[in-house]
């Protein structure tokens, strides 16, 4: 009786989503194992480590596969592998890079914040699962070439982060962080999806590629809807990357959320947000570059200057890092004003910066101590004498964020500066170089505290082995990439989006 309609199955490329599947299943497994066996949290940690490793392995495989695809002549095979699932997501170097970055950040974040997970006890399992899920969400967001897909990924990531922000119950400020993050975040995503709707209304397309071809094909006589939609997309993502004036959540959340997880939260949101921003603006609206480039430049300026000035007067290192994150959002946005050509520099900057971020928050977590209490700059006094190794690493990381030559931060800054200059935004570069000087000003305040003041009253606990390793690792990478950036640069150089 029922009319049999045959559905045309889309090209399915399991490889393209293998990491996400791993993560998703992994999360489920973690939860189930926890419920079933109540294992010690360490076991779960090992398990999560394994999951991340597997996911990373898949990503590497993807990378290789992408290289192959790019060499194939068979267009069908190419499309099937490159744009699987009805062109919902793309498997290109950019998306794989995003996976590398996010997985690394997740691993390091968990390790450096391990104390927290141990303290969470049974809730630790949920926390771990949520980290995995958030990661998968952001990877999807980064690899999607379809607005709704992007929205879903964004939500998966964000909602997980809202929960993580409020997951610890020992501190009131954790609640505040969670609710602020959640309310503002959901408004932002509402704005984003409204933008999706408007773009859909204006172009009739949700797929970025189709939208581009539509826009390149037709002259939009009444672009109001399209433009408003675009603005809303930019704003929605601007919130995720905490660019001024959409940054206001960042300081409070960084300060309120448990120290152990902030590093990951900040880094993951930035990676996903920027990956999406590149895709939306470059893949869908290259024809409107002239319109949105100035807008991006404006946001960048506001972020660099405003963030810098506010960071100058912070007393809590977490807030300081939050505002510095705002300035960094501004710097990274500079790489976008030239369109897609800046993508490699953006990716380099993201990789470098997020590593430093995680490392820095690793230190913060140590100083915050088990309770994840407040971390005023005063708490870092005399760290150079009490915890020399920690202090040196932190100093390196801070100077790296400041963009001091011989650190990776400098190379990264140089990259985005030159793309902006190439794009004809000389004034933006001038603003940026001056802003980076302001940057030094507030990073130095911490260094001053560490090296030029006497010890604080309550001694800083010795860092645990895991966090020690993470901090050291990130610091070393910062220096090494500052001396020999070429390998990573050659990697990111391939990440030109469609």
């Amino acid at each position: 009786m029922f009319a049999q309609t045959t559905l045309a199955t889309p090209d399915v490329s399991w490889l393209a989503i293998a990491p996400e599947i791993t993560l998703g299943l992994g999360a489920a497994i973690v939860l189930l194992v926890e419920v079933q066996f109540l294992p010690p949290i360490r076991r779960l940690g090992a398990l999560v480590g394994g999951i991340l490793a597997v996911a990373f392995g898949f990503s590497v495989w993807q990378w290789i596969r992408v290289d192959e695809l790019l060499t194939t002549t068979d267009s069908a095979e190419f499309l099937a592998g490159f744009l699987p699932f009805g062109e919902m997501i793309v498997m290109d170097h950019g998306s794989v890079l995003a996976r590398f970055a996010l997985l690394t950040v997740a691993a390091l974040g968990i390790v450096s914040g391990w104390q927290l997970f141990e303290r969470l006890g049974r809730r630790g399992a949920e926390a771990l699962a949520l980290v995995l899920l958030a990661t998968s969400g952001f990877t999807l967001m980064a690899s999607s070439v379809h607005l709704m897909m992007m929205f879903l990924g964004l939500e998966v990531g964000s909602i997980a982060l809202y929960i993580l922000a409020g997951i610890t119950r020992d501190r009131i400020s954790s609640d505040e962080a969670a609710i602020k993050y959640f309310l503002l975040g959901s408004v932002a995503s509402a704005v984003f999806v409204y933008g999706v709707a408007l773009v859909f209304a204006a172009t009739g397309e949700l797929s970025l590629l189709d939208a581009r071809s539509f826009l390149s094909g037709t002259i939009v006589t009444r672009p109001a809807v399209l433009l408003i939609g675009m603005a809303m997309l930019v704003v929605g993502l601007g919130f995720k990357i905490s660019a001024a004036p959409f940054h206001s959540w960042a300081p409070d959340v960084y300060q309120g959320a448990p120290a152990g997880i902030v590093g990951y939260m900040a880094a993951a949101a930035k990676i996903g947000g920027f990956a999406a921003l590149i895709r939306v603006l470059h893949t869908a609206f290259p024809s409107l570059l002239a319109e949105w480039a100035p807008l991006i430049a404006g946001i960048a300026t506001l972020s660099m200057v405003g963030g810098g000035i506010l960071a100058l007067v912070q007393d809590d290192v977490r807030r300081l890092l939050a505002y510095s994150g705002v300035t960094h959002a501004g710097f990274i946005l500079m790489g976008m004003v030239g369109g897609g050509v800046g993508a490699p520099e953006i990716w380099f900057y993201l990789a470098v910066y997020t590593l430093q971020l995680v490392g820095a928050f690793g230190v913060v977590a140590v100083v915050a101590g088990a309770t994840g209490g407040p971390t005023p700059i005063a708490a870092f006094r005399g760290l150079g004498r009490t915890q020399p190794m920690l202090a040196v690493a932190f100093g390196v990381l801070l100077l790296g964020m400041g963009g001091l030559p011989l650190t990776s931060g400098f190379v990264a800054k140089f990259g985005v500066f030159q793309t902006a200059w190439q794009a004809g935004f000389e004034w933006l570069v001038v603003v940026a170089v001056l802003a980076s000087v302001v940057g030094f000003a507030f990073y130095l305040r911490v260094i001053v505290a560490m090296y030029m003041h006497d010890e604080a009253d309550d001694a800083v606990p010795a860092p645990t082995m895991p966090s020690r390793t993470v901090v050291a690792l990130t610091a070393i990478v910062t220096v090494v990439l500052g001396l020999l950036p070429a390998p990573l640069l050659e990697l990111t150089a391939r990440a030109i989006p469609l």
Partner: protein
Amino acid sequence: MSPEILVPLVIAVPLLGAVFLHFLGRRIGEPLAGWLATGAIGTSFLLGAISSVDFIRGTSEHGESIMLWDWMPAIGAAFEIKWDPLAALMTLVVTGVGTLIHVFAIGYMHGDERFARFFTYLNLFAASMLTLVLAGNYAMLFLGWELVGLCSYLLISFWYTKPSAAAAGKKAFIVNRIGDLGFMIGLMLVFFHFGTLSFDGIFERAGEVLTTGTATAIGLLFLLGAAGKSAQIPLYVWLPDAMEGPTPVSALIHAATMVTAGVYVVARSASIFQEAPAAGMAVATVGALTALWAASIAIAQTDIKKVLAYSTVSQLGYMFLAVGLGGYVAGIFHLMTHAFFKALLFLGAGSVIHGMADEQDMQKMGGLRKHMPVTAATMGIATLAISGFPLLSGFWSKDEILAVAFEAGGFASVLYVIGLVTAMLTAFYMTRQWVMVFAGDSRWDEGVHPHESPRVMTVPLIVLAVLSVGAGLVNTPFRLGLEHFLEPAFEGIAMAHPPDGIGMFLLLAAVSVGAGLVGIAMGGFVYTRPREVWTRFQTGFGRLWTAWESAYRVDDLYGAALVTPGRKASEVAAFRFDLPIIDGLVNGVGRFFTESGTRSRVIQSGYVRHYGVAFVGGLLLAVIWLLVVGGA
């Protein structure tokens, strides 16, 4: 041996002496250190003498320039020696007088804890002075020029624990520097126009390269420099203070040698001044005025060394008068004779001070004649010599200068009159000094037991006395030995000469000798009488005398006009401008940022709904921007 080797040694020997004494002087100690130093400079006297034989014989006319090594080739500066009669003469004077003063100093500095160091400086000075006179280019000349200044600084403030001495040394150096400023600028011009600083490169082409304008400029700038070194108006103020130094220093540096450097430079640059008569006249005028000015001050001084100091200034004025008018031989001639008798005077004064246990106030002396006969006799001779007593050295040289001035005529005849008056004053105050010190009855405090100085000090006095008597004979109107000797050095220069003819000579001589005798008579008449007479005599001049006594209060004037305002100015610059304004601005920038930071913190009020407002506001801005740019 040929000068190429010997002449460099003239400089090298005392220099090595200085270096040696610097490191080992303390070890070998007194008096050997002194004898070593004396030996060093004595050696270079001999070397100089040997090398200048040819000039005296007249076999080698122009001498030669000896290239040692490159210094600043970009501006034609090298370590090169110009060995010509002028240099030779200066060398002999410097080393000759220098040797005698070294000997004297051995006795004078006896017992000083830094005995050896003193001779180190003396030798260093000798080397520097010789560098100055032997220099083959202006750069090297300037090298010596500055080094003698340095040595004079070291020697004036030799007794540095005396604040006055330290201050005097500093003052001397800085005032000299002001002069050097002029000299340096002069050198800049020279280099700019000649492209080199080497004498040979300059003097041949002076005529073709220089216009009167530039020549005058250079000349005046050199005059400024010379005025600094040779203590002429307006820069003479350091010399009286320089008397803080040990007396041998005053004799050597501030009477015989260093202060004559200015005269030497003018003579050396004759070919430049030739292009600039105005500059020459300026030199002469400055000289004449200084002569009178200083002489008038000397009249009223009661410090035995101050009298000599102002007298030196005044005599240097004579030399300037001469060289300014082009009477180079006359100038140099007087330079030489003056070196002898003024050195003698200073040493004599030193001997007196020595014998009087460091008493310098002439009012506390008198009647020393019988206690220190040698000193008295020798100083008497010197006094007569400087007063231009016939047939003594001063007579010949001074008369030649006056004669030159007379001959030049025109404005110069005014200068001649000034010179004449000065001659009279000189005679007066010198006689006054001698009488106050040696004649009359003793006025010294009890406890003081004046005694003749040891042989080592008196011998130099005697030698110098002989020279003061006889040195004049090298250049008399009847036998112009010095003139012939120096001529090669001034080849191509139109030199001013005294009028020819014995009659004229006798007439002028008579006039000046008359002036001198008047002075002597007056001095003798007043100051052999008891004190009341002097005071009546002095009060007779009223305010004028006090003005002289206080040296016209020029120091106070400079202090009020230059030093204090300068200090004020730099204080304002440092504490009213640099710190509050410039640095204030810098810190202001920093404060601006932090301030704006603190102010903008209110935006981050912590109220989520405020954040919402910010968010929505941003959103609207973005929308509106895109709509506007997108042309919707």
